[in-house]
């Protein structure tokens, strides 16, 4: 899984990490994000999606292995320089503080001493929130809040977004809205995006998927290649059926018996 592309933005090789100092949680992980890619990082709860994104953004420091950004070790970057290239949005951001939308979006300028060309108003227009400028963050819907933070990363100018479960707790309309917005930014502004997900149906709509089992990568590629019934059973511990429609659309159906326990995720596929 070495850099298979011309311009690798983020390159993680042989990365190991442990929260406790004992047995490593992430073991010998390799993951490359190429310029302009739009990747779904799919895995069960607790499989290490967040950990991988935090290792990639430098919040966590790997015990072994290397993480490089644009070919240079991530740790060699000054904090502010790194912030101009990569932006990690945690799954939960404490929004109980009465910050306004404009104030939060404006924080995207913090890494800069000289104001870059984009303004708060422009960023808000790009995410379709131009009329919410002075609203309090806590007055917005979950989907709108996500868009506010995405607008902030636009101002931040980061070419790579690492988004930790940006679709969690959103109903389907907002999930589609956010993915559509991110795809649009990916196409029009060539921003590379990695989205941590646990919804297999959404991952099936992506062009590139990284499937995670606890602590390591089970496969990288198109959904057709990666999201097989066996692998999903392995990663999630449930029996599913993948239904592919003639038009290319695919979705899954839960096949397990509700009255019988499934296997733990990560248990080797029987047979």
């Amino acid at each position, binding site marked *: 899984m070495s850099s298979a592309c011309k311009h690798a933005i983020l390159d993680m090789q042989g990365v190991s990490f442990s929260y406790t100092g004992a047995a490593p949680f992430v073991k010998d992980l390799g993951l490359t994000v190429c310029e302009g890619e739009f990747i779904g990082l799919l895995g069960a709860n607790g499989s290490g999606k967040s950990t991988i994104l935090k290792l990639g953004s430098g919040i966590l420091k790997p015990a072994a292995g290397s993480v490089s950004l644009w070919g240079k070790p991530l740790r060699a970057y000054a904090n502010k320089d790194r912030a*101009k290239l990569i932006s990690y949005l945690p799954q939960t951001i404490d929004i109980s503080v009465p910050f306004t939308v404009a104030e939060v979006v404006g924080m995207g300028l913090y890494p800069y001493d000289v104001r870059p060309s984009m303004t708060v108003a422009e960023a808000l227009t790009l995410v379709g929130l131009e009329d919410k400028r002075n609203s309090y963050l806590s007055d917005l819907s979950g989907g709108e809040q996500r868009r506010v933070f995405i607008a902030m990363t636009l101002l931040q100018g980061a070419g790579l977004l690492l988004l930790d479960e940006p679709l969690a707790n959103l109903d389907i309309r907002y999930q589609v809205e956010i993915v559509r917005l991110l795809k649009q930014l990916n196409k029009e502004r060539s921003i590379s995006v990695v989205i941590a997900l646990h919804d297999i149906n959404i991952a099936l709509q992506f062009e590139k998927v990284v499937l995670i089992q606890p602590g390591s990568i089970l496969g990288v590629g198109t959904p057709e290649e990666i999201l097989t019934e066996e692998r999903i059973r392995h990663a999630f511990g449930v029996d599913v059926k993948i239904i592919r429609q003639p038009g290319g659309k695919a979705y899954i159906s839960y096949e397990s018996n509700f009255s019988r326990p499934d296997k733990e995720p990560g248990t080797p596929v029987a047979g």
Partner: protein
Amino acid sequence: MKLKIFFVIVIFFFSFGLSLFWGPSVINPFNLDETSREILLSIRAPRSVVALLMGMALGASGAVLQGILRNPLADPYVLGISSGASLAAALGILAGASVFGAVTVPLFAFAGAIATGAVVGMMGWNRGVIWPERLLLAGVGLSFLFSALLMLIMSISADEGLRRAILWIFGDLSMSDWTRVPYGLVLVAGGLAIPIVRARALNALVLGDEFAHSLGFSPGKERLLLFVSVGFLTAASVSLGGMIGFIGLLVPHIMRFMVGSDNRYLVPVSALSGGALLCFADLISKSILPPMELPAGIVTAIIGAPYFLFLLRRKNVLSL
């Protein structure tokens, strides 16, 4: 926004001016006799300056602490720093120490504040970063311990000299003179400079450590730096006039209603209005029943708390 900030600055200087010329008796600045001049220059002026400085320290430290701990109930007293300071002061009085002359008691309080801050910081420090919840709980725990020790000392001491310690612990500005101003000024200036310079980091920290990291800040380092500034500010307030509640806890909330949560404005505005409020409260406390003086803390709470409750009902804004 600009108007509101201007308004707070005007209030700040207005309360300073008012406290100079109004009081138990009115002083006409254009018709000064000997006594009035003396009262103005060596009684009222230093007292007003000390009240302003102390209020500034309280207001700013509350704002910073609530931000770095992401907790609306944080203030210098919750962290136990102030009770540590009081305990040290009471011990100093008991021991009869007077090595450093007039500033002995403030000096003990200062040492107590810094030492407690360090202990609380160490308790909250784990795996290379400060953990807000641990820090807060450690502070609450230490605060209980120190208050209990303080009570213990007072209970077993027949010494009426502790009356002073008690009054001082409840906050007292009546003995303020110019000797307190220089160290107060240095501590407050230092304690305010840090959060004003690091206001962006503080804003990012309010939204989360990972969020702050993503914006190019080092959360552990920033929080430590800001915590040091709280140490300066608390040491200043406790050694200037003892313990006065309310301002540190509620003035930042009131100011959030007014100017919003952006710490670039919130911290300085909390400082200014904290100073104005304490100065004004002290003015009332010494003027209402002359020649008697009431503790300024009582008046502060009586003025401030109803206004805060009014705002809480009226504005449906969650504050931190």
